[in-house]
Structures are given as C-alpha cells and as structure tokens.
C-alpha cells in the first residue's frame, strides 16, 4: 500500500490557519513540540497549507545519516525516530516541499538516574499523519471550509479516473469518422 498525505483544495482555503492551530494543539503534550506540522502559505493568488507528502522514495529519508527519518509502510507514512536526530538538517535541505524543520530545546543530560547537566536536543518537526489519533488527522477535522483531505491510494485512483474521463470527453471531436460526433 502506498503512503497517504494531506492535500488542500486552494480554491476553498481561506487562509485562516485553523489547521495549524489544530495541529499544534494535537502535539502539545509531553515529549513533543507544540509547533504546527503544516504551514499555510500565501502567494499573490494562492492560499494553502503545505505539509509533508510522505514521499514513496523520500529524499529526507535518503539524506538522513542516522535513520531518524524512515519509511513506515505499516502506517503509510514517513515516520520519525526523535531519539536518533542529531539536528544536522540534511532533511531540511533535501525536502523539495519545505515540509520538514528541525527545532532544538534545552533538556537535562541523563544517564541512569543521574543528571549531568543540560544539552540541546534536536527534534524533527514534520507531519506524522496523526496516526495515534483515533479521529484521524486533526487538521482535516478542524478545517472549516473542508479544504483538507487525507489522500490515499483509492482516492488518488478515483482522481486519476475522473481526469481520464474528462480528458476523453473532448476527444470525440477528433473522430475521423464523419458524422460520428459524440455528444
């Protein structure tokens, strides 16, 4: 099975960032960073959030020297092992969507039950598809214009089929048989 990912419909997106607030709130708990995993991005004519595409041959996974990012086929996503991240930002440079970020925070340096001081711990900030959330992606549920959806293989196949139907509809005009004009 192929990976899933979040896609916006920029036509109905109103740029309200509710999806970002929902993503942040979902991740606002121990061991995680309260930072949105998707960024609403504005150009002159488009407003839409950008999130990780969970690439099937992911540049970030290929670029990560320590395996902090990895393919997680069971959950149809590219997943994170936070404990391995060394904050080298190879993924940030490799990702063609600007969908991954590295953020650090000061944490105690612990060995056994002893604290030896503090260090800067790096975190990968990237969409995790909210796989541990029973209701599914928080952003999709929060979007008030229903701009967001979780794209999976079936949905992609439906989209492709529709596009083929649309494409062939006009092709009737190109018929070489006179009078065989198809409405």
């Amino acid at each position, binding site marked *: 099975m192929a990976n899933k990912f979040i896609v916006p419909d920029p*036509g109905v997106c*109103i*740029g*309200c960032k509710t999806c970002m607030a929902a993503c942040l709130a979902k991740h*606002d708990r121990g061991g995680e960073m309260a930072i*949105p995993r998707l960024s609403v991005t504005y150009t002159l004519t488009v*407003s839409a959030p950008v999130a990780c595409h969970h690439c099937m041959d992911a540049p970030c996974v290929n670029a990560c020297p320590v395996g902090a990012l990895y393919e997680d086929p069971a959950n149809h996503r590219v997943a994170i092992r936070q404990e391995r991240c060394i904050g080298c930002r190879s993924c940030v440079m490799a990702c063609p969507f600007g969908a991954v970020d590295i953020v650090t925070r000061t944490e105690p340096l612990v060995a056994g039950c002893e604290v030896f001081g503090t260090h800067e711990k790096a975190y990968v900030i990237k969409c995790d598809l909210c796989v541990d959330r029973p209701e599914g992606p928080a952003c999709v549920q929060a979007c*008030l*214009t229903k701009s967001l959806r979780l794209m999976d293989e079936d949905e992609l196949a439906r989209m492709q089929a529709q596009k083929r139907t649309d494409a062939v509809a006009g092709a009737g005009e190109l018929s070489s048989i006179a009078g065989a004009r198809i409405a």
Partner: protein
Amino acid sequence: MSVSIPGLEDAGCIMLFGYNPAASHPIVARRIVRAKQKGAKIIVIDPRYIETARIADIYIRINNGSNIAFLNAFANACVEGGYIDKEFIEEHTTGFDAWYETIKKYTPENTQKITGVDPATLRAAAKMYATSETGSVLGYGMGVCQQLQNVETVHTIASLACVTHNIGRPNSGVAPVRGQNNVQGSCDMGMLPNMYPGYQKVTDPKVREKFAKAWGVPVEKLSDHIGYRLTDVGENAAAGKVHAFYNFGEDPLQTEPDADELKKQLQGLDLLICQDIFMTQTCEIADVILPGTSWGEHDGVFSASDRTFQRFTAAVPPKGECRHDWQIFSEISTRMGYPMHYENTKEIWDEMRSLCPNFYGATYEKMEGLGYAQWPITSTDPDDHGTPTLFLGGTFTTPDHKAHLMAHDWEHPTELPDEDYPLILCTVREVGHYSCRSMTGNCKALSVLADEPGFIQIHPEDAAARGIEDGQIVRAWSRRGETYTRAHLNPRINKGTVYMTYQWWVGKCNRLTLHHTDNRSHTPEDKFSACNVEAIADQTWAEKHVAKEYAELKGRLADEAAAQEVAPKGEPVLA
C-alpha cells in the same frame, strides 16, 4: 444586517465592500465559499486582494478613501445601464430625483482618478450586482465604518440596494458586519448614549416613562439627553467635562486611536474604574479594578451581526473574587442607593423582553441548546424563531414605511499623505488574534502562530525602495508617535499604503493613528492616516529592543496584577 448569515449561501450575488471576512469572521467566509460552490457570483471591492478576491468573479482594487466617489459612480452605472427597478422606486422609496441630482455628477470616467477603477470593470460589476435573478447581498465592514464619510457611505449603500431592488425580497439585502463578538448585543441592549434597550430613544418622554415605571423610579431620575460616546471620553476628560470613567470589557489604550494622547487624558481623570478579566494597559492606570468573569464562566445571550440571539452557559465557576458583570453592577447600584437584585440572567432577560416589544418573543426556552431567536420577534410561540430577512415586500421602518434615498458628495480623507509622511496607514484584522489581544494573547497556540511585535504589511516595491526585507523589524512613525514592528512584505496589498492590526502591544499602530471622528456616529477614521516607515540597519539591536519592550510591559502588568494576591482586608466585598 437586513439578511441572515446562513441566508448568504442562497444569494445569487454577494458583493463585498471594505470587508475581509477571512480575517474578521472566518465563519462568514466559509458561508461565502459555500455560496460560490452553489453558483453565486462574487464581487470583491477592496484596496487589498483579500482571500475572498481569489474566488471572486470580479475583483476591483479601489483606492483608499474613495468609497463615496466609487459608489456614486456605481449607482450612476446602474441608472445608465437601466438596471434600476422603477416600479419599486416609485412604490417604496422617496427622494429619487434629489438622489439622482448628486449621483449623475459621478461617472465611471470622471471618478477614475479618485478611485483608480477602470470604468469597464466598474460597469460590469454594476450589471452583475444589479441584475442577479436570485438577488444580491451587499456586505460591508470597517472599510466603510471607520472612514471620514462613514455614515454617508452607509446611506449610499442602502440607497443602492433600494434603487436596484436588492432589498425587500428574499436572498438580498445589506449585510453590515460588526467588528467584534456581541457588538450587536451591546447596541441591542442599549449600551449607546442615545438609546434604551431595544433601540428606544432616551429623548422620547413616553419611553422614559415606561422604563421609570418598570424600574420604580421617578421619571426625572432618568436622563433625558444623549450622553457622551466612548471615542469622545478622552477629549472631554481633558476639557474637564468628564471626571469619572467606568470602563468595562474594553482596553481603550490599545484599541483607540492616538493612544499616547489618550493615556495622558485618562490619567487626568478623578476616577477611572476598570472591570476586566485580565490586567490590560487601561487597567494599569485605573484607580479601581473590578474583576469580572470570562465567557467560559458566565451565562448569557450573544447577538450576532444578523440580529440572532443565542444563549450560552457557563462551563466553569468563577475563580477567587471574580463576579459576573451583572452581579457587580447590582452591587454597585445597591450601594449607590438603588437596590438591585437578580437571581440569574434569565430574570434580567425576561425584564428586558417585557420592555422591548421587538425582542419580546426571544424567550430563554427558544434559545435552549442550539436554539435561537432572531429579532424582530414579537411572538412567544415556540416555533416562531423570528425574522431572517427585514423589510420584505418593501415595507420599511420609517414613519411613511418608505425608504428615503440619500446621496452625498465625496470628500477626501482628513490626513492626506505628503512628503514627510508619504504612506497611507490603514488598520485591519489578521487571522488568529482578536481585538485588544488581552484574551487571545494568553492562548498558547495562537501566540505560537503570531506574537509581538506584530506586523506591518507593506507592498514589496515600497519595501524595496526603503531597503526593507521580509521579517525585519522596522520603525514606523506618524505625527502622533512611533512604533517598532515586523515587516510583512505582501504582494496582495496596494502600493502606497501600509496595513497594521491594532492588537499588537509593542508594535502598537494606535500610537500612529489619527484621532478624528465624524460628528454623527463618532467613529474614528482608523482606515486613513499618514505615516512613514524605515529600515533599521542593526537588526540584532532591533530584535533585542522589541523583546525588552515586551518583557517590560508584561512585567509591569504582572506587578500591577500581583496586588490581588494579597488577602483583602476587612469585610468580604460582597454580601
């Protein structure tokens, strides 16, 4: 508004004029998206290419401060194109000839220099708005109300809706939105210097008699003249006409124009009382602070912009010494010699209903759960939820039941840009934070998404001319004051104008804005003043400077608030 917000989805055409719903009311923006999905035509007229412009059939970039010139030309194009409804005008309006005397002077061509609008596009928009089969709604916001000619523009919009018969029938009308949650409710409940609840005039002796009787006081005790407006309090304090100011649920030092001057004026008062839920900058200079409760801690009724009453109930009990606003008012009234006592908000509401015929049918029972009541609502029949559309059939609330057409000549805004202050400053909303930010600033998620020193939106070309890069701290100043804020280079806005949101404490645009109010609504001209912006070479210094200012301000407010940690002396405050 004359229409209902859910009804927007069924309009044939929605024209937005000086209103950016995606930033001010995302819920309304969602309705407009749905209307578009159902086939409505959308027209957006705004100096900025706002979110809704992206789905508009016609977008018109209008020059700041040219509203009346544009609308007059628009009305002219409707007459010239034959899109007006002569029968409706004849039967349901008065004053057409005088109205047209003014309108005919403004053509799409001769106003182009003022408005910056291409005549052909203006005509196409006029046709689209005026000829929609299903009916058109004209939505407007602070882009109309916070201008020098605000009341005039409202007259012009209403007249336009009348002559094209886009009022008085279903799915059409005018949709003025309110700036904040429950502003409509404040007006409905008579929080105006000229009205009792239910829009009953303080100058009307019959009205005074009715209220005096209900409240058991001699009629002479009720004021028979119009009081001062909030926007005039500062000047009146400075002039010695106002000595005490009881301010509740407002932070004027954040939200009112020329805030530095206002602070001096309020500091000269004999008594300043603030009733709030957080330590705001106005609370900081108050003599007395009365701790109220937040929306999550009390019961009540909100009115939406479309006249819909909705009940809400407390989620959690109040903490510490906090009391509901109505309890505080009752206590103060009792101590001032007029015993006032209510058990709950329903008692207050029922008393209010009994005195306001237009609200009489809005019972608590109807508003149970997700229920609602939309005024005018006179019947208590449980199935009657009120009036979604006003003036159906062309019957208006004037003495002769007709609409009185009004037109006005255009005047330029008060403070025009010049050599020293070449940029227009216009205040707007951003998504995320709300009003003076005393509430949303305390919300972690929203602060992560946007925080101090806020933003100034500037066109990339205006920024390039000043050597300003996106995200840099800049200095902005006007004849009134200066502020430091972050540049947001935005290609969607027009050149020559910068946009700031009044919610930021450090990047406070109201240190710059002009305090100029019109003499009818007394609303400040927040949408137009002159300023300048410059780059700061040493960004490290600038970042440190704003961080320090923010920390100092928060520290000062926290110190002020710490006074409440001390146990109150003597008798408990409330009986």
